[in-house]
């Protein structure tokens, strides 16, 4: 389909004998926000990591804009697929500004250092980065080492880092699970602001309220299979299968 940013087709992933994903199919339409929920070990991380090739499938395909992700094109495609990790994974050998500009700088057109063009490109990139950091409330942190930031700030930097390459889709793997409770909101708000601007997103999360408010579609996955999917309304107010009901009752109180 032309409108699908990512298509996951009959995805199977095994680690040795353990089948972690079993015939999973997902279409992510442009502008759509999908939340993936499920209990620990159900395969959510594996699934979202397959979407940008951090895990390779045992069988089945992942398509980005209708094109199969392959070893040959993955680096190119990843520049347009933003990925945010649970554990931030900022680079401690660079300050915040360098963290968010290193990818576009490396992927951009090569300029000979210290020429006019090089200076201009660098300046434009830094301005864009500062503007973006400002937008996420990090304007005064540009020169800071990421180690000196709070968890919430780190995760917002990680979001800006992913956004700097102008991705067509953002993937989040439990972006708030490593955060102290008082910092969860600032990160969820940042993600919500992206949703409001129409960013296509897939979010693995345990924050049910957040999923309900931000997602167009919720996918419940258990033991590597999609058990149920639908609008937040359907999933939360009218769950069909027993396992989902049980999962929700456990997680909602």
């Amino acid at each position, binding site marked *: 389909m032309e409108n699908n940013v990512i298509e996951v087709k009959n995805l199977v992933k095994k680690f040795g004998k353990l089948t972690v994903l079993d015939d999973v199919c997902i279409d992510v339409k442009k502008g759509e926000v999908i939340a993936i929920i499920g209990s620990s070990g159900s395969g959510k991380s594996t699934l979202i990591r397959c979407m940008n090739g951090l895990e390779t499938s045992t069988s089945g395909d992942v398509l980005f804009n209708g094109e199969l992700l392959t070893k040959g094109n993955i680096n190119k*495609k990843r520049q347009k697929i933003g*990925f945010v990790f649970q554990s931030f994974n900022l680079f*401690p*050998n660079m300050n915040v500004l360098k963290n968010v500009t290193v990818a576009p700088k490396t992927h951009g057109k090569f300029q000979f250092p210290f020429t006019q063009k090089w200076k201009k490109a660098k300046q434009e990139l830094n301005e864009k980065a500062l503007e973006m950091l400002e937008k996420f409330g990090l304007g005064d942190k540009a020169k800071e080492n990421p180690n000196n930031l709070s968890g919430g700030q780190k995760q917002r930097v990680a979001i800006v880092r992913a956004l700097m390459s102008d991705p067509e889709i953002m993937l989040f793997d439990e972006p708030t699970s490593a955060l102290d409770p008082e910092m969860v909101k600032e990160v969820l708000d940042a993600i919500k602001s992206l949703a409001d601007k129409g960013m296509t997103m897939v979010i693995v999360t345990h924050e049910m309220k957040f999923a309900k408010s931000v997602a167009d579609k919720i996918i419940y996955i258990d033991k590597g299979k999609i058990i149920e999917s639908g609008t937040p309304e359907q999933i939360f107010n009218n769950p069909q299968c027993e396992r989902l009901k049980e999962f929700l009752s456990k997680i909602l109180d």
Partner: protein
Amino acid sequence: MWDNFWSRSWTVLTENSSFLWDALQNTLIITFAGFALGLVIGTILAIINANPSKGIFSRIAKGFAWTYILILRGTPIVVQMLILFFVFLGPQGVEALNVAILAFGLNSGARSAEILRGAIGSIDKGQLEAGRALGFSNFRTMQKVVLPQAYKNAIPALGNEIIALLLATSVVGFITVIDITRGMQLIVARTFDVLVPYMLLAFIYLVLVYILTLVLKFFEKVVFKHGK
């Protein structure tokens, strides 16, 4: 035998000052040039070893790296140097000093590779994944993300490597290079005084190692001041 030890020491130093100064320079040149060469070789070997690819090129390169490290760490540096000089390069007219630098560089490369392999292994896997997720190739991720952190973690071990290298260079006299050890030996041969030159020699190494230790401490302090 110990009569007038200090004045005799002073005489040995002043009478041979320019000769010993040249010898000392050779010791330092072989140490630092060898270390630098070793660091380059070690980095290349460590990158090869850290490549997760299971492709045919990667396998061949890893086999090469494994063999290289096995041989260079499994035979004495003196033997390596003798073979390099007398069998291969000496007959080609390559200067002994250059052969010494090369021999110590090749040898240090094997150890630096192991040091860097450990340092790379200690970097959180998430760093590599974050680099790859931004669209960097494996090599780019190494260059921009993993190696800078690995070098930093490896500074104490690499510092030890320089010191070990400095002391190990005392064998270059075997291939006619006049370093500080060989220099003192020649003075002994000339003056028949065994005590003073060799005691001086030990003292010079001790001072050099002490200075190096201080410099390395200072360097570590500067580097580790920022962040964690």
